[in-house]
């Protein structure tokens, strides 16, 4: 299936989920649509949750919260002007970051169990696989541009975004000198800017 029709399909499902508001009879159809949306997107979104929180069980909690969130605010999608998968991905990322913040406030040592996993992520970096049948055009562009970065730069940029980490936090978690982190991110961003400017 080409990306555009895949996007149309996801948008149609979001519309059907939103249609239940104010129409009691539409509830069953909304649930069917949510199930379809889940089948089409849950693996990819679980990947996002897992990347942010690292722990499988937590990632499942995050995924559950995210789909309930999507269920409730599907009606807002039309105003977002984003590709549907990215819109949902951002919801998952926010829920995952909320989850980590909640945990951090419950347990002072929450960062500890992340560190090992984080270091591993950077060391074992592999190019992000991309399923062209699902990705939006902007995802394709970002994918192409990230691919041109050095592996460690790509990882740092990805982690900075996905886990909302500052230079200092990245340096601490990855046990890298602060100056190194700053340089890699700066160079990574510069290259990314140059590359992304080719895609309107």
């Amino acid at each position, binding site marked *: 299936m080409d990306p555009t029709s895949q996007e149309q399909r996801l948008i149609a499902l979001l519309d059907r989920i939103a249609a239940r508001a104010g129409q009691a009879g539409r509830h069953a159809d909304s649930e069917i649509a949510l199930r379809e949306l889940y089948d089409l997107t849950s693996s990819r979104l679980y990947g*996002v949750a897992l990347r942010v929180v690292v722990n499988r069980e937590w990632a499942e909690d995050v995924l559950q919260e995210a789909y309930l969130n999507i269920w409730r605010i599907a009606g807002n999608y039309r105003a977002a002007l984003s590709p549907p998968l990215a819109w949902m991905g951002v919801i998952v990322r926010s829920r995952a970051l909320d989850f980590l913040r909640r945990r951090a406030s419950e347990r002072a040592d929450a960062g500890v169990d992340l560190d090992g996993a984080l270091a591993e992520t950077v060391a074992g970096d592999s190019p992000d696989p991309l399923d062209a049948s699902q990705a939006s055009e902007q995802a394709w562009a*970002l*994918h192409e541009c990230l691919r041109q970065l050095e592996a460690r730069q790509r990882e740092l940029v990805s982690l900075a975004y996905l886990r909302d980490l500052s230079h200092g936090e990245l340096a601490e978690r990855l046990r890298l000198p602060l100056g190194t982190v700053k340089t890699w991110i700066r160079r990574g961003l510069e290259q990314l800017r140059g590359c992304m400017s080719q895609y309107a």
Partner: protein
Amino acid sequence: MNLLDHPDLADRLAAAYALGTLRGGARRRFEAQARHSPALRAAALAWQERFAAMTELQQAQAPSANVWKRIENLIAAEQDSPVPPVAVVNGGWWRALNVWRTAALAGGLATIAAVGAGFYLSDALTVRQTQLAQLDRARAGLAQENARLVSRLQATPEIRYVAVLSGEGSAASMLVTFDPKHNTLTLKRIGAFQEGPDKSLQLWALPASGAPRSLGVLGTEAVVKLPAAENQIGAAPALAVSLEPKGGVPSERGPTGPVLFKGPVLPTT
């Protein structure tokens, strides 16, 4: 410095802003300028959109099958619950569930600690601890499942009796349901009837023999909840609503005003 005079720097800052690595004073200065500059805002938004695509690039992995089950249950609970969805969004029982879950987990850890200390002298230590940890994980899983079911059951009203009250020759005007689990009568106004400011509607149980007994005075809202015991409802073949002076009349006197709506009580099972 006006960033608009330095488009390259502006774009670089917009990218760092969207990535999240622009922090502290630099971030606040960027935000301050963006508030007055549509072009700067547009650059930041464009970069936010570009980075949002990062969420599409993560490796896909199938979550376990019970995630969908949980979503399905929560949606069903939300649908059945008389609480409007907004209240659920704001935490409600989901938060309560998390507290419960945390407590269950803490209990489990305490058990491990206590039992673990006992085994410390034995050379089977590692094996036993692994077994215990496995047992505890299984137990915590069951406890979670339990908590989910309990909260779902609690959120779901059971409807044992229903009555449609209507006036003479008019369309249905009030829907009454009784939930024995919460000992609650729920009345929904369906028609457009609205009592005057000096009047109140009063709900009565009409027993097979004997005088009507008051079940309560209705507020003016579209959905009214009244506490009631199951024997008050189950024993009454019919319910009625009368128009009374503001605040209603004592039960012993019986209805003094006209009966507006009336209907039989029907058990749902």
